[in-house]
C-alpha cells in the first residue's frame, strides 16, 4: 500500500511538471488558458491524493478550491476577457520555443539537484514532492519573464502558485494550508479583476518608448 501511495503521488506531481512544460511552449493565449486549466486540474487531483494519503480531510478543501476556482472559474473568466480585448489569437515570441524549453529543463535539473541533496533526512514522499514543486515554481517564473502579455504573465504566476500549493500540501501536517490557498485565491481574483478593469495588455517594459517616458516621470 505504501508503494502505491507513493507512486500515485509521484505520478501526479510529475504530471504537473510536464503540464508546466506544455504551458511553456504554447504561443496562443486561448491554448495557454486551456493548458492552465489542465494544470489546475492535475493539482486538484494531486492535492486530493495527498489528503487521502495523509488522512488530512481539510486538504480536500484546498483540492476543491483548486478544482472549482482555478480549473473552472478563472480560465472561463480569462477566456472571456481575452475575447473582449481581442487578443485571443495573439501570438507572442519573446524567447523562442527551443531556448525556453532548454532553460526549463535546466531549471528542473537544478531543482532536483538542490532539493534532493538538502532533504536527505526528510520523508521520501515529501522529498520528491518538494523537488517537483520547486520545478513547477521555477517554470512558472520562467514563463513570467519570457512572456510579454499581461494575461500570460498572470498564467505564469498562477502556475507558480500551483507549485507552492503542491509544496505546502506535501509538507506533512503543515497548518494554515487551507488559509494560505484562500489568501492566494483572493490575490489571483484581484489580479484578474485588475486586468479586466484596466485592460492591461502589455507588460510595462514594452518597446513603446513613449509610454516608458511618460510613466517613469522622467520627461525633460
Amino acid at each position, binding site marked *: 500500500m505504501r508503494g502505491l501511495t507513493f507512486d500515485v503521488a509521484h505520478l501526479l506531481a510529475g504530471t504537473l511538471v510536464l503540464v508546466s512544460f506544455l504551458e511553456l511552449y504554447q504561443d496562443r493565449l486561448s491554448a495557454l488558458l486551456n493548458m492552465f486549466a489542465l494544470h489546475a486540474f492535475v493539482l486538484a487531483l494531486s492535492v486530493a491524493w495527498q489528503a487521502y494519503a495523509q488522512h488530512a480531510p481539510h486538504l480536500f478543501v484546498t483540492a476543491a478550491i483548486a478544482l472549482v476556482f482555478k480549473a473552472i472559474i478563472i480560465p472561463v473568466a480569462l477566456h472571456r476577457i481575452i475575447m473582449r480585448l481581442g487578443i485571443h489569437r495573439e501570438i507572442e515570441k519573446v524567447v523562442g520555443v527551443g531556448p525556453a524549453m532548454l532553460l526549463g529543463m535546466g531549471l528542473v535539473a537544478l531543482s532536483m539537484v*538542490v532539493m534532493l541533496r538538502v532533504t536527505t*533526512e526528510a520523508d521520501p514522499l515529501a522529498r520528491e514532492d*518538494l523537488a517537483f514543486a520547486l520545478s513547477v515554481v521555477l517554470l512558472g517564473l520562467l514563463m513570467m519573464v519570457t512572456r510579454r502579455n499581461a494575461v500570460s504573465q498572470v498564467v505564469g504566476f498562477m502556475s*507558480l502558485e500551483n507549485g507552492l500549493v503542491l509544496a*505546502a500540501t506535501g509538507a506533512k*501536517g503543515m497548518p*494554515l494550508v487551507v488559509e494560505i490557498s484562500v489568501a492566494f485565491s483572493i490575490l489571483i481574483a484581484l489580479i484578474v479583476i485588475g486586468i479586466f478593469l484596466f485592460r492591461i495588455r502589455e507588460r510595462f517594459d514594452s518597446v513603446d518608448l513613449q509610454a516608458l517616458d511618460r510613466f517613469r516621470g522622467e*520627461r525633460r
Partner: protein
Amino acid sequence: MSFDPMAAILLIPAAAAGCLALMPGYRLTARLNVLAALATFLTALSLLFSRPQPGPYLQVDDLNIVFIVLTTFIGFTTSVFSASYIGHELDTGRLTPTFLRFYHAMYQVLMFAMNLALVANNIGVMWVAIELATLTTVLMVGIYRTHEALEAAWKYFILGSVGIALALFGTILIYMAATPVIGEGTDAMVWTILTAHASEFEPALLNVAFVFLLLGYGTKVGLAPLHAWLPDAHAEGPTPISAVLSGLLLNVALYALLRFKMLLAANPQALAPGPLMVTTGLVSLVFAAFMLYRRRDIKRMFAYSSIEHMGIIAFAFGMGGPLANFAGLLHMTMHSLTKSAIFFAVGHVAQVKGTQRIADMGGLTETNPVLGWGLVLGVVAIAGLPPLGIFTSEFLVVTSTFARAPWLAVILVFGLLVGLAALFLRLNTIAFGEPRGPTAKAEASYVPMFAHLALVLIAGIYMPPALVLWFQNVAKLLG
C-alpha cells in the same frame, strides 16, 4: 475579560477600518482615522510596561516591541499629516469622496496588517500579514487611477506577488526543517519554539530556505536588484502612503528577514547569513546612490534614497555583532522618522507647485520658508550630516566596519558620499535660487514633520541611557 494590549493593537485598527468604510464625510473620517491611530499608539506604549505571555500566534519580545512602537508612532503622525493633505486632494478633484472613504479604511487595514506581521509568533501568520499589507498598498498606490498610477500599482503587484510567493516557499522549507525535531502541526511554525530548537535543524535545508526568504522578503525591503517596484510605487501613490511605505513597510519586511536570520545564526552548521546580506546591502547602497543623480521627479528621488538606506541597514545587520546591530537598529529608527518627515514636506511642496518635477520647483525657502527650511533640514538629516541622528548611526556603521573589514568600509563610505552629493545637488535646485512655479501658501500642518525632525535632532545630540541600554540588549539578541 481583562484588557489585552497585544490583541488591542490589532483590534483597534480592524474595528476602525470597518467603521471608516461605512462613514461618509471626510472631515469626520479623517479625524476618526487620527483618533484610531493615536489609540493604537498609546496601546503599543502600554506594551512597554506590561508584556503578555507569548501564545501560539502572537508574541511581544524585546526585538519586535521596538518595531511596534515605531510603526504605531509613525502611523499616528502620518494620519495627522494625511488629514491636512487629503483635503487638498479632494479640492483639486484628484480624489472623490467615495475613494477617500476607501482610502481611510485601507489606511487602517494597512496598520492592522503591519501590526499583525510584527506581533506574529507564527511564520505562517507573518506571511499572511505581509501579503495583506502588500495588497492594501497596491490598492492605495493605484488610487488616483491615472495611467501612471495604475502601471505603478500593476508593477508593484506582480513583483510583490512573486516576492511573496518565494517567501512562502522558504516558509514551507523552514517548516520541513523543523518537523523532524519538533513534530508536525502548529508548533513547528511558532517562532519561540523554532528559535529554541534551531540548532538541531538540518542545516542544508535551512540554507536553501534562507535564500528563498532573502529573495522573497528582500523584494519587499527593496534591496537591489529586486527594487524595481519601489520608485514607481512611491512616486504615483498619495504621499501619506509613500511615507508609510518608506518609513514602515520596508521595516516590516526587514523585520521578517531578521527573524529568519536569527534562526540561521542559532544553527552553527548552517551557512552564515551575514555575507549574503552584506553583499545585497552594499549593492543596493552603491546602485541607489548613483541612480539619485538621474532623478527628475522629487518623490522618485527620495524613493531611491530609501533603497540606499535600506541597503545600509541590511549591511549593518549583515555585519552582525553588538555594535553593528546597534547601529543598524538606530539607523532604521532614524531613517523611518526622517524619511517620513521628508515625505510630509514633499507632499505639501508637490501640492503647492502642482507638480512633482524637480525642474519646476525652485526657491522654496523664499516663497514658503517654513516648508522650504523643513525640507532642507530633512535632507541634511537624511544625507547624514551632524548633528542629526542619522550621522550617529552611519558613523557607528562605518567605524564598526573599519575595525573588522576595512575594504567593505571603503565601498560603504564611497556610496554614502556619492549619495550625499546627489541629494545636495537636487536640494540646491529645489530650495534655493530663483523662485519657480506657483508660490501659493501651503495649507499644511507642520507639526508631524517638525516633531519627527526634532526627535532625530535630539537623538543625534543626546540619547537617553535607558534607550541605549535597550537597543544594546536587542543588538545582543540578534547575534
